C-alpha cells in the first residue's frame, strides 16, 4: 500500500516535472532553417517528391541503415530465443486446419499483397509510404499464409537469401556513393531524373526497394520465430 502511494507520488511529481514540456512549448507555424533547407534540397538536389523519404533515405540515411540493423538484430534476438534447434521435437499442433475457402483465398491474396507491398516501396519517393511500410505489407502476406495453413513452412533458404542480399545491396549502394561521389549513402550516382516520376531521385527508389525487401523478410522471420518454427 505504501508502495502504491509512492508510485502515485512519483507519477504526480513526474507530471509536475514534465509540465514545461506541455506548457512552455511554443508551437511553431513555420519551418526552421534546417527543415526548410531539407525541403529545398530534396526538391532541387535530389528530385524527391516525398520529402520525408528524402530525409529518411538520404539526409539521415545512416539512421535508416541503423534502423534496418535494429530490425535485423531483433530478428536474430527473437531467433536466438524462440527458434527451436533443428530436430528439436515439437508437439504436433492439434488445431484444426483452416477451411478450404480461407486457404484458397489466402493463396490467391498472397501474390496480390506482395505486389502491393512492392508498389508501396517503389513509390516511396513519390507518395506516402516506402520501404518500411511496403516491407510490413510483404510480411503481412506471409502472415496470411501462416494463418491460413498451420503447418506451413517458410522456404527458409529463399528468405535468407532475400534478407542477406537485400541488406548487402543496401550497403553496397551506400558504398557506391562513397566510391563514386565521396560520401557514404549518397544516392546521386544515378541520374536524378525529373521530379515526380518513378525514375527520379537517383538511387533513392532502389535503396528504398532493398530496404523494403530487407524489412519484409526480417519481419516475416520474426513472425516465423514467434510462431516457434525450426531454425
Amino acid at each position: 500500500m505504501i508502495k502504491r502511494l509512492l508510485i502515485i507520488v512519483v507519477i504526480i511529481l513526474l507530471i509536475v516535472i514534465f509540465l514545461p514540456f506541455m506548457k512552455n512549448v511554443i508551437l511553431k507555424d513555420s519551418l526552421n532553417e534546417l527543415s526548410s533547407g531539407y525541403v529545398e534540397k530534396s526538391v532541387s538536389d535530389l528530385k524527391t517528391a516525398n520529402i520525408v523519404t528524402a530525409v529518411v533515405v538520404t539526409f539521415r540515411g545512416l539512421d535508416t541503415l541503423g534502423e534496418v540493423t535494429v530490425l535485423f538484430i531483433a530478428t536474430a534476438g527473437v531467433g536466438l530465443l524462440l527458434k527451436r534447434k533443428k530436430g528439436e521435437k515439437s508437439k504436433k499442433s492439434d488445431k484444426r486446419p483452416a477451411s478450404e475457402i480461407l486457404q484458397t483465398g489466402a493463396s490467391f491474396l498472397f501474390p496480390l499483397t506482395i505486389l502491393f507491398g512492392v508498389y508501396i516501396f517503389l513509390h516511396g519517393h513519390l507518395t506516402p509510404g516506402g520501404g518500411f511500410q511496403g516491407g510490413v505489407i510483404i510480411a503481412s502476406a506471409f502472415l496470411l499464409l501462416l494463418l491460413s495453413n498451420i503447418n506451413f513452412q517458410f522456404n527458409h533458404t529463399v528468405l535468407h537469401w532475400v534478407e542477406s542480399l537485400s541488406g548487402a545491396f543496401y550497403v553496397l549502394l551506400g558504398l557506391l556513393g562513397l566510391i563514386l561521389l565521396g560520401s557514404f549513402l549518397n544516392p546521386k550516382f544515378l541520374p536524378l531524373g525529373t521530379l515526380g516520376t518513378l525514375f527520379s531521385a537517383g538511387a533513392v527508389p532502389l535503396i528504398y526497394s532493398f530496404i523494403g525487401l530487407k524489412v519484409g523478410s526480417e519481419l516475416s522471420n520474426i513472425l516465423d520465430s514467434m510462431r516457434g518454427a525450426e531454425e
Partner: protein
Amino acid sequence: MRYTLILGFILFMIGLWAMLTRKNLFKIVIGFSIIDTGVHLIIVTIGYLSGKTAPILDKLVTPANAVQKVVDPIPSALVLTAIVIGLAVTALMLSYVVRLYKRRKSLSIEDYRELKW
C-alpha cells in the same frame, strides 16, 4: 495542437503506471508500448505546423511554394525510426516473456527476484 502533446504525455503516464504496478509481464510490455506510442505522438506533434500539409510534392504543393506549405519532415523521419525500434524492443521483450514462462510457468514479475543485494 497542444492537445495531442498533452495526450502523448497522458499515454506516457498511463504506460508508466502499468510498468510500475502491473505484476503481469505481459502488462509491463504493454505498458512499455503505450509509453512508446505516447512519445511518438509527442514527436509528431512537435513537427506539426498548424494549417500545413504533408511534406509531399503534388499538384498543390509545388517546388516553389513547398517551404511555405508543408509541415516539418524531420520529426516524421525520426518517428519512422522510433516506431521500428519500438517494435524490435517489444518483440524481444515478448520473446523473453515466453522463455521465462517456459522455464518457470509464471507471468508474475514478483517470481523472478532471487537475484538481489
